C-alpha cells in the first residue's frame, strides 16, 4: 500500500549531486507512513467510541437512568414460569437462571443434534435408495428454511395444539404428553446427589475400561469393553441409588395437572425440537462431506479385511472422518448455543429473554446488554476450548 514508485533521477547541476543515497524523507518512509496510517485509524475509532460513550452518559443522566452495575442487586420484580425464583431476589439470580436455561437447552440440543446429524449424514451415503433419498430430502428441506420459522412452528403449530391434560397422550406412566409439556420418570434426589452418583458411575466405568484395555494389550485377548463396562456402571448406579435412598418417581395425572417425574416445559420442548432438527441437517452435511473426504482405499481395505459394513464404518472410516469434521461441527455447536436465543420469541426464559425482561422492569439497558454480551462470549469460549481440546487429542501425531 505504501510502496513508492521509482522516479527517474533528475540530472541536477553537477556539483550538488551526492554519491551516497540521501536519507529518505519521513513523508516517504514506509515505516513512518504505515504507523501514521494505523494511528490515524486507531484515533478515529477511539474518537467515535468516546463520542458514543459520552452520549450514553449524557442521555442516561437526562433520563435519570444509572449507568453502573448496581442493578444486579435490585429485586427482579418478575418471575420465571416453572422456576422457584422469587420476584424479590436480585437481578443477578435471574441472569444466572437464564444462563442455566441457555445451557440446559444447548447441552441437550448439542448431544441430540450430533446423534441425529451423524445418523442422517451416514444415511445420505447408504446403499439403500429409500434411506439415501429420505436423508437427502430431510437435509435439503431443513437447511433451507429459517430457524425462527421452525421454532414458531414447533411451538404454535405442534406443542400448543397438543391435547389438554385430561386427554393426554400416554405411554403408561413412562411418558405423558399434553399441552403443559412432556413428563418422564425421574429420580427424586437432589441435583447434587444425582450428579455425584453419575460421577461415581463414570469413574467406575472409566477405571474398568482402562483395566480391560490394559489386559487386552498385555495378553492379546479381546478387551470386550462394552460387555464389561455396562454392567459395572449399572450396578454402581443401582446400589448407589439404593444406599443413598434415591427412588424414581413416575409422572401421574392428578386432576388438572401432572405430578411426579420431571416435566419438560412446552417452550423448552419446542425450542429443543427446532434446534435439534435444524442443526442436525447442518451436521449431516458436514458428516457426509467428511466421510467422502476419507480416501476410498481405506474403506476398500477394511472390506478386504472382511470387516462387516458396520465394522468398516465404526473402526476405519468414521474415526478418520471425525478428524476432518470436528472444526466445522464445533462451529455448529457454537451456532446452536447462540441460536438458543430464539427462545426469546416463544418466551422460553433463556439469557436473552431474561435480560430483555429485566430491562423492561427498569434495569438500565446498556449495562444489562454488556453483561449479556460478556456471558455469551464466555460460553462461546468454553465451547471453543472443549472442541479445541478434542481436536488436538484426535489429531494425527505429525508424521
Amino acid at each position: 500500500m505504501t510502496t513508492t514508485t521509482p522516479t527517474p533521477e533528475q540530472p541536477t547541476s553537477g556539483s550538488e549531486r551526492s554519491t551516497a543515497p540521501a536519507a529518505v524523507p519521513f513523508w516517504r518512509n514506509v515505516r513512518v507512513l504505515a504507523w501514521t496510517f494505523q494511528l490515524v485509524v486507531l484515533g478515529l475509532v477511539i474518537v467515535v467510541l468516546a463520542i458514543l460513550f459520552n452520549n450514553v452518559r449524557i442521555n442516561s443522566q437526562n433520563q435519570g437512568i444509572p449507568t453502573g452495575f448496581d442493578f444486579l442487586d435490585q429485586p427482579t420484580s418478575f418471575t420465571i414460569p416453572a422456576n422457584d425464583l422469587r420476584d424479590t431476589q436480585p437481578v443477578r439470580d435471574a441472569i444466572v437462571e437464564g444462563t442455566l436455561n441457555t445451557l440446559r437447552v444447548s447441552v441437550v440440543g448439542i448431544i441430540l443434534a450430533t446423534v441425529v446429524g451423524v445418523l442422517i449424514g451416514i444415511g445420505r451415503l447408504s446403499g439403500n435408495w429409500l434411506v439415501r433419498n429420505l436423508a437427502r430430502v430431510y437435509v435439503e428441506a431443513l437447511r433451507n428454511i429459517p430457524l425462527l420459522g421452525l421454532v414458531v412452528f414447533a411451538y404454535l403449530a405442534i406443542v400448543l395444539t397438543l391435547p389438554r391434560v385430561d386427554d393426554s397422550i400416554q405411554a403408561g406412566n413412562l411418558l405423558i404428553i399434553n399441552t403443559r409439556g412432556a413428563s418422564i420418570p425421574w429420580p427424586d434426589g437432589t441435583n447434587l446427589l444425582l450428579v455425584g452418583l453419575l460421577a461415581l458411575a463414570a469413574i467406575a466405568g472409566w477405571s474398568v475400561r482402562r483395566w480391560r484395555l490394559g489386559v487386552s494389550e498385555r495378553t492379546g485377548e479381546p478387551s470386550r469393553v462394552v460387555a464389561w463396562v455396562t454392567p459395572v456402571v449399572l450396578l454402581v448406579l443401582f446400589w448407589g441409588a439404593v444406599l443413598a435412598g434415591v427412588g424414581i418417581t413416575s409422572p401421574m395425572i392428578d386432576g388438572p395437572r401432572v405430578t411426579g417425574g420431571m416435566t419438560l416445559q412446552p417452550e423448552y420442548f419446542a425450542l429443543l425440537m427446532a434446534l435439534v432438527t435444524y442443526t442436525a441437517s447442518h451436521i449431516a452435511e458436514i458428516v457426509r462431506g467428511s466421510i467422502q473426504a476419507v480416501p476410498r482405499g481405506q474403506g476398500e481395505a477394511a472390506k478386504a479385511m472382511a470387516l462387516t459394513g458396520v465394522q468398516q464404518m465404526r473402526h476405519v472410516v468414521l474415526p478418520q472422518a471425525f478428524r476432518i469434521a470436528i472444526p466445522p461441527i464445533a462451529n455448529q455447536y457454537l451456532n446452536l448455543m447462540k441460536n438458543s436465543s430464539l427462545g426469546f420469541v416463544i418466551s422460553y426464559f433463556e439469557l436473552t429473554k431474561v435480560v430483555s425482561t429485566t430491562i423492561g422492569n427498569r434495569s438500565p439497558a446498556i449495562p444489562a446488554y454488556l453483561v449479556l454480551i460478556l456471558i455469551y462470549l464466555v460460553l462461546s469460549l468454553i465451547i471453543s476450548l472443549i472442541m479445541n481440546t478434542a481436536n488436538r487429542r484426535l489429531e494425527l501425531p505429525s508424521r
Partner: protein
Amino acid sequence: MLGSIGAWLRANLFRNRTDAVVTVVVGSILLYALYRFLRFLFVTGRWEIVRVNLPLYLTGAWPSDELWRITTVIVAAALVGGLAAGVAARRAAEAPDRVDTGPRSPGRVALDLLDRLWPAVATVLLLLILARTAAPWLLVVAAVVVAIAANQVGRRLPLRVGWLVNLAIPVGVVAALWLLNGGVGWNEWGGLLLNLALAAIAITLCFPFGVLLALGRRSTFPILRLLSTVYIELFRGVPLIALLLLANQALGFFIPQSIAPGRTVRAIVVLTLFTAAYVAEIVRGGLQSVPPGQIEAGKANGLTALAITRRIVLPQAIRNVIPALVGQFISLFKDTTLAGAAMGFLDLLRAAEASTQQDAFRGDGLIAEALVFVLLVFWAGSYTMSRESQRLEKRLGVGVR
C-alpha cells in the same frame, strides 16, 4: 421391463435381509407420513387464510393504490436483469477460452432454466393460482416477456456499451429504493417485500465491509489487525437477535434522539455489521488459499501493494469462497425473520402469525396452514439460491484448476 425393475429393486432396496427390513420399516413410516401430509395439503388444510391474506403476506400493509410502484420495480428489474444477462452471455461467447457447446434451441434453454429454477418457478405458480385474479398473471407474463426481449437486445449490443449496463444496476437499485420509499415510507414496509429488501440491501453493504475486515485481519499492521480481530470475534460471539434487541431498546442512548434512524435503517445496520464479521472470516479463508507465489510474482512485476491486492489476490481469493459467501447470504435472507421478531416489523413470518388473529380466522387453529406457506416461500428462495451457487461452483472449477 419387469425384469429391469426387479433388478433395480434388488440392487437398491433389497440387497440383503437387513436392507429389506430397513426398506420395509422406513418405507411404511414414510408412507404414513406422506399420507398424513397429503391429507393435510388437500383434505383437512383450510387454505382460505393464505388466499385472503396474500397481499398482506407479500407486501405488508402496502396501500393498494400504490401497488404500481412495486409493479414498476419488478418490470424494471426484469429489464435490467435481462440486459445484464444478455451482455454477460455475449462476453462469454466471445471469450477466447470458451468451450463451444453449439447453438441451443429456445425450448432447450427454457427446459434448462426450468430445471435450474424449478423451486422458485413452482412457488410463483402457486402464488398466481392462489391469487385468482388476472393482474398478477399479467405482471408475471409482462416481466418474463420484458426479460427475454432485453436478453436478446443485450446479446446484440456492441461490447463497448457493456459498462452502461453495469452502471444501470446500482442506479436502478437506488431508483427502486426511491420509488418504493415514495408510497408508505420504508418504516412501514412489511411482508416478503421487507424480507427481500432487508436481505438485498444488507448483502450489498456487508460485502465490501467484510472484505476490508478480512484484509485488516490479514494485514501486517498490528493495530489494524487487532481492531479487525476484536470486531470479528465480538460480533461472531453474540447472537443476532440480542444485537437487534440492543439496537431496538438502547440505540437511543448512543446517538441524539434527533438523528436516531427509523427501525428499518436500524435493522439494516445491525444485519450488515453482523454479517460483515462472518463474510470477513470466509474471505480470510479465501485470502489464505492464494499461493504466496502469486503475491511474489506481483511484486516482481513492480506492482504496488494496493494493485497486488486488488488485481491479483482478491479476485482469486473471492472466487475460491463464492459458495461459502452465497451460503452466508442465504442465512442472511433467512435471518431477516429475526428482525421482524425483535423489532416488531410485520415481515412475512409475523404477518402469517398475525393473520391467524384476524376476526375471520381467530380460534380456527389455522396457524399450521399459515406457517407451512411461509416456510415454503423461504425454502423456495433459499433452495434456488443454493442450487445456483453449486452450479456456479462447478462452472468456476473451484478446487479443480
